[in-house]
């Protein structure tokens, strides 16, 4: 019964949380972009020159440029390829997480939301970095793959699938389940789990 209430309430709350998320614009994306910037500058300064947030887009200036329709180092080309990434592709996880959490009506809900938000920003930062890597793979190709510390193309594709297609929906669910502990819904769920696992 509690679980049914949870799902129905989540569906009812989703238009509200998604509306707030959309209206808030860059507010929910900015910390993730800063984290992504720090990550890319620390690990791949030879690939990414600078990262910034403009509206809902994360811009990234690469260390590659175009010279006679060929991708070469930016220093040789005299120009830099710019990546344009829609941060909403990963930040909608916050709206989903907020709907799940609000539907549960947990004690210290706001505090739990803040903790979850920090975790989601970290997940989002990896998601944004994965999108940047995928864009570099598509736009730059071989010069990017041959750069130091760049994983193979297959691993980049797998990371993109995982961080961009799966984590924005899976991470909020994991966080929500983790924060459910001690709540009436958790007790109902735990009772189901105990009964279900008692058979094995």
């Amino acid at each position, binding site marked *: 019964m509690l*679980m049914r209430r949870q*799902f129905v309430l*989540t*569906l009812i709350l*989703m238009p509200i949380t*998604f509306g707030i998320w959309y209206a808030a614009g860059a507010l929910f994306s900015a910390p993730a972009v800063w984290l992504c910037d720090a990550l890319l500058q620390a690990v791949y300064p030879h690939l990414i020159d600078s990262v910034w947030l403009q509206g809902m887009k994360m811009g990234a200036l690469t260390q590659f440029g175009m010279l006679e329709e060929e991708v070469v180092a930016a220093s040789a080309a005299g120009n830099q390829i710019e990546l344009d990434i829609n941060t*909403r*592709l990963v930040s*909608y996880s916050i*709206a*989903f997480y907020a709907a799940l959490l609000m539907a549960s009506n947990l004690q210290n809900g706001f505090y739990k939301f803040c903790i979850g938000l920090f975790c989601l920003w970290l997940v989002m930062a990896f998601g944004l970095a994965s999108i940047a890597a995928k864009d570099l793979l598509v736009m730059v190709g071989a010069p990017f793959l041959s750069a130091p510390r760049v994983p193979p193309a*297959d691993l980049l*594709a*797998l990371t993109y*699938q*995982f961080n961009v*297609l*799966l984590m*924005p*929906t*899976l991470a909020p*669910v994991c966080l929500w389940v983790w924060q459910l502990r001690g709540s009436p819904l958790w007790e109902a*769920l735990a*009772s*189901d*789990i*105990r*009964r*279900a*696992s*008692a*058979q*094995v």
Partner: protein
Amino acid sequence: MAKFLLIFCSVLGSLFAIEMLNPVQQAVIQPFTVLLANISTAVIVPFDDTVIAQGRILRDATTGFAVSIEAGCNGVEAAIVLIAGIVAFPASVQHKVIAILAGFVFVQALNIVRIISLFYLGQWNYTVFEWFHLYLWPVLIMLDVLVVFAIYLQWLGKRHPEAQPT
């Protein structure tokens, strides 16, 4: 809990890696995606006979509007999450197999609704299409996975009510 998480993450990572392999894409994922396009078309045609399936593309023969079912839109990722959850949870092999098969059908049924809705939303309004495609449907599909898993737990529990703790 720790054992569940360990098995869940291992199965999730392994299935994701397997799904990305070229032979698996060629032999399983691509044909399955084409099948999804064909099923979606078969569901639509009784109501709208201008729709045709071309490989993994759904096309309106009159307007020329088309949607292509790409990676991430075929429901395989959601199914992988569900399979990982079911495999990680302690139950008999028979129960796991039944849950995986039924859960897969349940997830794919909603995924077909997603494909059909996106096909018509795209013809109506591209902004609305993008919203549903990129943000709302992935969340609804994950909620679907969560519902299926919750039903599975209740189903397992109801089969052994005597094991309920006092």
